């Protein structure tokens, strides 16, 4: 598809909005922004999703009162076929910070709209769920941390908890509260089951216990320092977040890093996927008490993390990325060492998959457990492994290539059953495709510089960066402020997109199967909570 026809296609796509469109402009190479009146929001968004087949990519609320005297909402839709993003922007008056909700038509907007209420005080009228999301019931209702006039340094006095969990009642329905403190060493989340006997009727998940206010604390930081924040959003997807942030900055500066840097980014991203997927596959076995799988999974993961340390000096690949490229290069000797280690790991991995996938009880526990239907996955805009296991073909490495993925062959792994077993198999096959991609990179990697200086960025330029993390696509939305600082930084992780889907898969299953279902999604709490 050449550039011209793409432009035409985008123009045709926007034609139908006619007079509703107050203005439109291209933002970055792959993004068009249109401004509409807030009253038209539901209709325009519904058309984009239901007729034009866009998917809600992220949604950002922004306090732009010092720029234009308004709050702004950005709904970003991705059009995978076009390789294009369309941002719907609308302005809200300070005196009347409400807007019509689109969640009833587009369920995926549910969390986003609740989030702008909690953090910016922008209220979605007609939202089906009016409970707070990020700030729990003990947070005062008139304090909005992401408004520019809220000081992060001042303490906020807490109020008595408003009680925002779902209550279950009725004969024979037992309420089972679990967490946020668990028996094992895992992240905090509060789950409330309504169950009859051991069969689950409904599950309500309350997250955001690890909300650290990273987006607020990043504001005002120089871009180079904000990169460290990006690396610390999540422990196990550190590199994906770092790459996404660096790409957002580079897009804002209209800089393309040197080819070698792009290839190396892809290499490290695949290494991150490898250690995560293999570790997750092993951990999944803990869901049905198969200790052999767990211990071999963690052994292989350890091998891969030691490889990471050898190559990058960090087991979780922190400190690899730099704005404009990479901080470190890889020597040919290291590349051949990499291939040797991966060969060993692959042989052991194949054997482990053979053991697990020929184990009757393991298969019985995984098959038909925790089914996420394609309809649910589409409605909630689920991403990553969970989406591909339900027959939803989203892989941002293919649809909006970044780093060196445009030059690499990235096969799509897809299953349609949507159960735990399908998610297991998607991960297992993605390990194999990751290994293939790494081999391609080692063959094709060009010589040259690994870094280019980032030119000065105009204040209030905005841009996005994205990466397919092991859990699915992450999207970083960035508006640069004066003097190369962060004005607004919105992190939408894969976990944020996928968490709302988890409670849907549990009803009908039995309570002791929940840990297995949860492990099969393997979502992170801290990068969801931020």
């Amino acid at each position, binding site marked *: 598809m050449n550039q011209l026809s793409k432009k035409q296609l985008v123009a045709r796509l926007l034609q139908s909005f006619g007079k509703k469109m107050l203005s439109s402009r291209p933002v970055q190479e792959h993004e068009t922004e249109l401004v509409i009146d807030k009253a038209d929001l539901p209709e325009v968004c519904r058309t984009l999703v239901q007729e034009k087949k866009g998917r809600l990519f992220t949604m950002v609320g922004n306090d732009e009162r010092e720029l234009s005297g308004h709050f702004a909402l950005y709904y970003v839709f991705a059009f995978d076929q076009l390789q294009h993003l369309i941002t719907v922007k609308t302005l809200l008056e300070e005196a009347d910070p409400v807007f019509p909700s689109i969640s009833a038509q587009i369920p995926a907007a549910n969390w986003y709209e609740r989030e702008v209420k909690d953090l910016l005080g922008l209220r979605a009228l007609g939202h089906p769920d009016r409970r707070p999301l990020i700030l729990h019931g003990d947070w005062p209702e008139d304090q909005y941390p992401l408004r520019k006039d809220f000081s992060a340094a001042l303490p906020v006095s807490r109020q008595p908890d408003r009680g925002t969990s779902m209550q279950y009642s009725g004969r024979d329905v037992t309420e089972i509260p679990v967490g946020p403190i668990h*028996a094992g060493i895992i992240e905090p989340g509060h789950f409330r089951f309504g169950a009859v006997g051991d069969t689950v009727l409904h599950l309500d998940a309350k997250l955001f216990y690890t909300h650290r206010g990273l987006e607020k604390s990043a504001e005002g930081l120089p871009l180079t320092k904000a990169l460290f924040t990006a690396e610390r959003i999540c422990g196990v997807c550190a590199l994906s977040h770092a790459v996404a942030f660096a790409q957002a900055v580079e897009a804002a500066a209209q800089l393309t890093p040197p080819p070698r840097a792009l290839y190396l980014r892809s290499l490290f991203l695949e290494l991150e996927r490898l250690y995560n997927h293999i570790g997750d596959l092993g951990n999944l076995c803990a869901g049905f*008490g*198969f*200790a052999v799988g767990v211990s071999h999974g963690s*052994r292989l993961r350890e091998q891969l993390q030691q490889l990471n340390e050898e190559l990058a000096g960090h087991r979780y690949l922190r400190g690899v990325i730099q704005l404009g490229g990479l901080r470190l290069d890889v020597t040919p000797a290291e590349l051949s060492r990499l291939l040797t280690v991966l060969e060993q790991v692959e042989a052991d991995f194949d054997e482990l998959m053979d053991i697990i996938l020929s184990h009757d009880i393991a298969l*019985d*526990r995984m098959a038909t457990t925790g089914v996420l239907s394609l309809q649910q996955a589409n409605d909630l805009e689920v991403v990553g492994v969970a989406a591909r296991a339900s027959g939803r073909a989203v892989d941002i490495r293919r649809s909006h290539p970044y780093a060196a993925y445009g030059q690499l062959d990235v096969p799509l792994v897809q299953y349609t059953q949507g159960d735990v077993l399908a998610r297991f198999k998607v991960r297992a096959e993605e390990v194999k495709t990751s290994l293939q991609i790494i081999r391609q990179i080692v063959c094709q990697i060009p010589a040259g510089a690994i870094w280019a200086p980032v030119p000065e960025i105009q204040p209030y330029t905005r841009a996005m960066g994205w990466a397919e993390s092991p859990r699915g696509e992450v999207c970083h939305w960035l508006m640069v402020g004066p003097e190369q600082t962060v004005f607004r930084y919105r992190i939408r992780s894969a976990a944020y997109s996928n968490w709302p889907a988890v409670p849907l898969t549990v009803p009908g299953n039995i309570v*002791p199967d929940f840990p297995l279902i949860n492990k099969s999604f393997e979502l992170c709490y801290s990068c969801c909570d931020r």
Partner: protein
Amino acid sequence: MLEQFLWIIGQGLLVALMAPLLQGVIKKTKARLQNRLGAPILQPYYDIVKYLQKDAVISDQASWLTRATPYLVFCVMLTAGLLVPTLWGQAPLGMAGDLIILVYLFAVARFMTALTALDAGSAFGGMGSSRDMALSAIAEPALFLAAVAVLITGGTSRLGDIMAITVRQDWNVLDPAYGLACLAMLIVVIAETGRIPVDNPDTHLELTMIHEGMLLEYSGRYLGLMVWAAQIKQLLILTLLIDLFFPWGVALTPGVSGLLAAGAVYLGKLLVLGIILALIETAYAKMRLFQVPRLLASSMLLSLLAIMVRIAK
């Protein structure tokens, strides 16, 4: 009289002190099979000593049951330990009861544990007890039936008598009834000791727990006693398996040298059984909760077959 007294003390000590060792062996074997180094074999002793020295934290919702149950369960298990022959072909309290009272003592301990798990009102205790009660409704008759399949030959319900008969007759091990009953018993052993594929003793996933779920509210010395009692029960269940199916080597006449030899044989058999349990646990994964009754039902079916074969002879 003094001998009787010493015998009771001796067997009580033997059962109580051997139980953590068996647990240690099983855990060590499992760790080695899973590619791990594992804790030292004596770790269960250290754990119990540690627990017993610690202060207990008890929910303010809990009643006296939470305080009483650990002592009660521990004493019940020790009493049960005096009803199962270990080294000598008679149990110290053999005159007081037979296999039936043993099954009932286990039931008392289970009932008290399940009841107390509801005491503090935590969700996991409730789930643990409801699951344990549901499974025990099938596990108990399965245990009884498997034992009956053997006891029926001797026409007795006394363990000591059937052991003597088995050892003296030295009947054909290849008897199909014997094999069927032994397999049935092995399934019961796995269920009663709370091991994979029925329950997972090592899990941290509170939603999947059965026995461990009932212990979540205990701490300190109470936890120590409950853990120790569970280990004693495990030892007793294995001893029962030994007594019913592999009694050879047990001392039938009093005498120090005979008892020592029997002790060595008993220890050896326990360790072998422990290793077999660890092997099963490593090779299997935990099955779906609602399929466990099927497993136990198959155990009962095997026992019934064994009884039929026995009667047909």
